[in-house]
């Protein structure tokens, strides 16, 4: 549910609950995107690949 939905209520419960949900989703998504970007950068030699 997004805040512009008519069922949305601006109260603490909604903000905490959806806040945590969207935060968790953002963290996971950001991690994957960062890994993907790093990969692209390393593949094209923009950044030096660290030795694993």
């Amino acid at each position: 549910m997004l805040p512009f939905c008519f069922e949305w209520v601006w109260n603490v419960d909604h903000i905490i609950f959806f806040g945590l949900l969207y935060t968790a989703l953002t963290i996971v998504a950001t991690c994957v995107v960062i890994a993907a970007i790093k990969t692209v950068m390393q593949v094209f030699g923009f950044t030096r690949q660290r030795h694993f």
Partner: protein
Amino acid sequence: MKNSAEKPSSIVVAAFPALGRYVSKGGWLCFLAGFVGALFLGWYVFPKLLYSSQPQPFNFSHKVHLEEADDPEDVESCLNCHAFRDDGTFVGIPRLDKCKECHEDPESPLGDSDDEATFLTNYMAEKKEVPWLSYSRQPDCVYFSHAAHVKMGEIECKTCHGPHGGSEVLPLYRENRISGYPIGIWGERISGLKTNTWDRMKMDDCAECHTEKGHEENNACFVCHK
């Protein structure tokens, strides 16, 4: 390094501009063509396929019937034919009896269009109801009280149905092939965006108006659902 000319390019790879050197020129063209094609399919072909078109039994001119009214969009003018019953329920599209009130009288001022001839010979003479197709038919789960909105809420008909009191032709009836609902429910635009209050008839539109008018309590589920 890979030789890009020999590798079949894929859309996934093409999605990253930085990978451009991996993909040949042909690959980019393919991607572009595919992208445009997908947009065309989604925004033009899909809506065309989704909605079936059916003509109304014959044309009806609201303008002709409201010629004597001062304001064709006035609620009282509409209520002459789209009337309330005694128990407060709404008639909707008038039945033949209503048409009869004027059209049975041979002295009544009648036009001479083909549509009128169709009406008089095929329906009026045969005493057969006209199978009109409703542009605003809601799903079965929806309860709507016209009395609450028109009589108590004093809302104009055009707020939801749009101004068509002065229209001369009936628009083509289009129905969603999957859900069976008329296109007016989702709205003409496939994107679902609206500019006028009457562009859509979805639950969100009902709720939006209730909220705007300060009737949040009417967003309770059972007010509009049955």
